Structures are given as C-alpha cells and as structure tokens.
C-alpha cells in the first residue's frame, strides 16, 4: 500500500531508499525521545510508591498550558526567556503535584495500590474536565519559546533544533535523575522507602517528605515534557496528555517500570517500532503493532527489557 513505485531499481533509487531510511530513523528517535521524557516522570513516582500515577499525563497537559500563559510575559524565541518559562512551569506543576499527593493520595497511604489507582483516575478526569472549563476545548497554538531552526542536508534529510533539544534534554535528565537517586541523600531515602517503607521510617527517613519530593520531581518532569512536547507539536488542548500518557506508560513498562534507564530505553524502542511500522506500510495498524510488540517482549521478559527479576520470597 505504501510505495507503488514501478520503475526499475537504479542507483538513484537506492540513494533515495537510504535517505528515507535515515530520515525515518531520525523521526523514530525524535518521537522515542519524547516518549522517554514523559516515561521518566512515570517511572520516578512508580519506583518509589509502586503505583501508576494516571494523573501524570494531565499534569503534563497543565505544564504545557502553564508555559502557554507564562510565555505571554516574555519575549518569544529567546533561549533565556524559554528557560525561565520552562522553570516557571516546572515550579507550578511541582506545587500542583505536591498538593494532589497531599489531598488525594496521602489519605490512602498503606491501602492497596488499586485504590490509589482509582483515585488517580479520578484526579486525571478532574484535571481534564477543569482544564476544558478553564482553558476551553479548542486547541491553542503554542508560542515559539525557543528559536527554531531546521538543518537540511543535501540528500534531503531534515533535522529540527526542537528535535535535537528534546534529545539532549532527555539524556541530560536521565543522568540528573540517576545522580539524584544514586548519589544524593534524598535519593538514598527514596530507594530506602521504595525497598521497605516501614523499615525506612524506622531508620529515620521522613516518609512524607520523601514522597512529597518524589511527586514534586515527577510533576516537574511532566511539565518539562509538556513544554518540550508543545514546542515540537505546537497545538495544545486539555486532552493532549491522554495519548502520549498511554504511550509513555507503555514505554515505562516496556523498559521495566521503576527503572530510570529502562524508561528512556523503552521510549526510544517504542518510537522506533512505531515509525518502522509506518515506514513498512502499516500506518493503519500502528498502535496495534506497538502494543503487539510490547506484549511479545513482556511474554519473554515479564519485567520489561531492563527490569530486575525479583525472586518471590515466601
């Protein structure tokens, strides 16, 4: 269905094929980097609390809208203003994350994760519907926060500065998060809490504080994701979080949920698989194949690509 070129293969065609392959590789990596960026936030919260924060994708949306409104007070397309807006949105969402955790999740501490999951679904519905009331249902065009450039190569390959930014930021965050979790005091506390909450509090970890911090961090990541996503695809609406949210969730599980490097890796794998499906002519089945690959991988590696195999103790 995809390409119905009937001409005989020639050297020129081969060159075109290589160009298309490279372009699709770039497309896939850029898409994967975005999934990875959102998946990092999912994984942070999951890693500590062992529960899927369904509202993450809506905090992502709030992040994009915060950027949209903050950007009005700053000159457009300047790197400095862009960073200020980004940090502002991250701060707003961090605060929002902490409030949500206090009001909706904390009263359920110690209950089964499914109970918290339903509350998270409620929070997600709440944010979506409040968003539709406040921001309106029509999509809004996201302003150019950062200067946008396209790098066109002679062969026809195109890379945009926004794609490169996402890639760089994702890798940067990956290392920052690894550093926080593995090298800092609060990171040690997070790992202790994740391992055993009761034991952690016995050895002097302030569980409430650590969980608040985790939510602040996760929500700030969501905001960063939202703003970079909106910079790449400059059309935002109150339901914009749903699809990337599900995809990032898949990416996080694919990589082994709770594992920071796994989330990034899972995102890139998912982006590449989706792009490959389209490139091979299966655009109608893109989402189905993406899920199919996920299921196959999980059948052979039940805890994801980089997930630890936990031996069950009796």
């Amino acid at each position, binding site marked *: 269905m995809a390409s119905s070129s009937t001409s005989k293969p020639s050297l020129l065609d081969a060159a075109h094929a290589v160009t298309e392959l490279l372009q699709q590789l770039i497309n896939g990596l850029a898409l994967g980097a975005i999934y990875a960026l959102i998946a990092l936030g999912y994984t942070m919260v*999951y890693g500590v609390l*062992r529960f*899927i924060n369904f509202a993450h994708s809506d905090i992502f949306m709030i992040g994009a809208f915060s950027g949209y409104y903050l950007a009005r007070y700053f000159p457009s397309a300047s790197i400095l203003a862009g960073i200020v807006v980004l940090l502002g949105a991250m701060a707003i969402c961090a605060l929002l994350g902490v409030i949500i955790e206090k009001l*909706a999740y904390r*009263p*359920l501490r110690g*209950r*089964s*994760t*499914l*109970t918290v*999951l*339903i*509350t998270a*679904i*409620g*929070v*997600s*519905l*709440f944010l979506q*519907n*409040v968003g539709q*009331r406040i921001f309106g249902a029509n999509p809004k065009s996201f302003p150019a926060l950062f200067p946008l450039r396209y790098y066109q190569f002679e062969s026809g390959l195109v890379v945009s500065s926004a794609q490169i930014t996402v890639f760089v930021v994702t890798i940067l965050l990956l290392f920052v998060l690894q550093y926080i979790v593995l090298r800092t005091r609060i990171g040690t506390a997070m790992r202790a809490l994740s391992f055993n909450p009761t034991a952690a509090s016995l050895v002097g970890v302030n569980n409430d504080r650590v969980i608040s911090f985790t939510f602040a961090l996760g929500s700030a990541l969501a905001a960063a994701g939202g703003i970079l996503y909106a910079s790449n695809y400059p059309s935002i609406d109150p339901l914009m979080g749903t699809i990337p949210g*599900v995809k990032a*969730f*898949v990416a996080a*599980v694919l990589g082994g*949920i709770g594992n920071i490097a796994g989330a990034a890796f899972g995102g890139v794998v998912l982006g590449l698989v989706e792009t490959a499906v389209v490139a091979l002519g299966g655009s*109608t*089945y893109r*989402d*189905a194949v993406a*899920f*199919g690959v*996920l*299921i196959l991988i*999980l*059948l052979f590696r*039940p*805890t*994801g690509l980089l997930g630890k195999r936990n031996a*069950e103790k*009796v």
Partner: protein
Amino acid sequence: MLSRSQLALLGALAVIGVIGFFSASYNPYFLDIAVSCGINITLAVSLNLINGYTGQFSLGHAGFMAIGAYSAAMLTATYGVVLLPALAGQEWLLFALALTAGGIAAALAGLIVGVPSLRLKGDYLAIVTLGFGEIIRVVLQNIDAVGGARGLIGIPSYTNFFWTFGLAAIAVYVVWTMVNSTYGRGFIAVADDEIAAEAMGINTTRYKITAFLVGAFFAGLAGGMYAHFRNFIVPSGFGFDRSIEIVVMVILGGMGNTGGVIIAAILLTVLGEWLRQFGDFRMILYSLLIIVLMILRPQGLFTWSLPRRRSA
C-alpha cells in the same frame, strides 16, 4: 431439590419478568437508564471475577465486550435475513443464538489474554490486557465488513428489560456459586497468595484461565446486549476509557464483593445521569465524587469487613 442460590435466581428472574412485562408503561428515559444499569452490572460482576476474586488486574474488559458486540451484531444485522427463516422466524431464538455466539467468541479471546497472565503480574499484566483491548479496537477499526471506524448500523432492537436483567441475574448467579463452591475457594486463594495456593496443591494456572474465560464470556454477552440496545456500535465505544469505567465500578464496590459491585454499577450509572442537572460541572463533580468516595471508603463502598490482605 433446589439449592438456596438456585431459588434466589429463579425468584429474581420471576421478579424481573414481572417488571419487564409492564416495561411499556415506564418512561423510556428511565427504562434506558435501567437497561444501562443491567448491562453495567453484568460487566462489573464478570470483571470482578477476574480482578476481584482472582486478583488478576485486567484493563481490557471493553475489548471482550467489543468482540461479543460485533459477533452478535453481525449474526443478527448481517446474517439475520438468512438465519431467521431457519429459526422459524423466532426473533428471540436468533437473539439468544447471537448472544451466545458473541459470548463464546469473547471467551476465546479471554483464553488468549488469559495465557499471558500465567507469566505476568500486577502492572505488567494490566498493561498487556490494556494492549489487547486496544489491539481489538484498532483491528475492528480496520475491518470494512463491520463498518470500520464508521460503525455498524442497523442492528435490530432486541434488548429489553427482561433480557438485560435476566442476563445480569445469571451472571451474578454463576459468579456467586462458582466462588462460593469448594472448587471456587481456589480463586480467592490465588488472589490472596499465589505461592501459598500453589504449595497447597491448587492448580493456579487453571483457576486464572477459568476466571478469564468466564469473565470474558459474560462481557461478550453484555456486549451483544449493548449492541442490540443501542442499535449502532463503533470501535471507539470500546476503548480504554470504557474499560476504566468498569474497573472503577469493581473497585468502588469492593474487590471480590459481588453485592457491592452490583450497587456500585447501579450507583455510577445513575450518578452520571443524575449529575446532568449541574450542566457544565457534571464531569467535574463526577470525578470529585470518585476521589472523595475512594478516600472515605478505600476498602470499597460496600465492604464492611476489614480489607483482605493482598500481596502487591
């Protein structure tokens, strides 16, 4: 000699029959809500067998519903002309046949989804069932014979109060007797502690597969009922959000508490309509109520005993 639960089933069917007999005199709007309640009860009770009693977290119930809905609708809408004369023109017979076929098709899908549950746990199983549900939806979207994304029109209007609640009563009866039998204690054992259950000589594989098989079967029947109620189905109606709605009913009612789940299914269905009077704030209130109810009654609205301990 009939057992007590069998008597209860017959009694319920009789009451439903009497209420259904007079259904023409009820307001169509309220009747509509009642039928929606009945379908949701079947869905929630069947999901409760998988999620609640057996502890296998499934997020793909709408997928089973879709398979049942499309199979049943194909039989009546497309092949009805051929099949009806063969069944002596008896529409109820055709409907029963279509529903059963839909149920069996969904049960087969349940079998396929149940197999991964043997290797996967918790969130990993949840995402795999979610994936299966989405795959079913995408595939349906691409089949032109069932209308693709534009949906299947012209499904005859067979569903009524009696059929819906009759099915709900049977679903409740089957799940209830299964779980409360000696054999059925195995489901709860699997949910409580799989390793301990295995050590006690319980065939956990068989229980998990059975739960998926039976749960999917009834979801398929409910799907067929839904198709002949709305007379029009689209793949997007069986997406991830529909599955979530059913999961909310189960958890709000109390995992593994059939009575609570029934009440929650009714409550949430009626709540959605009742909140209409608040106009623009309807969905905001709906989501707030879910959060508040969950915080106030984390063990489920209608579970009065201490929550069962479960290994995460």
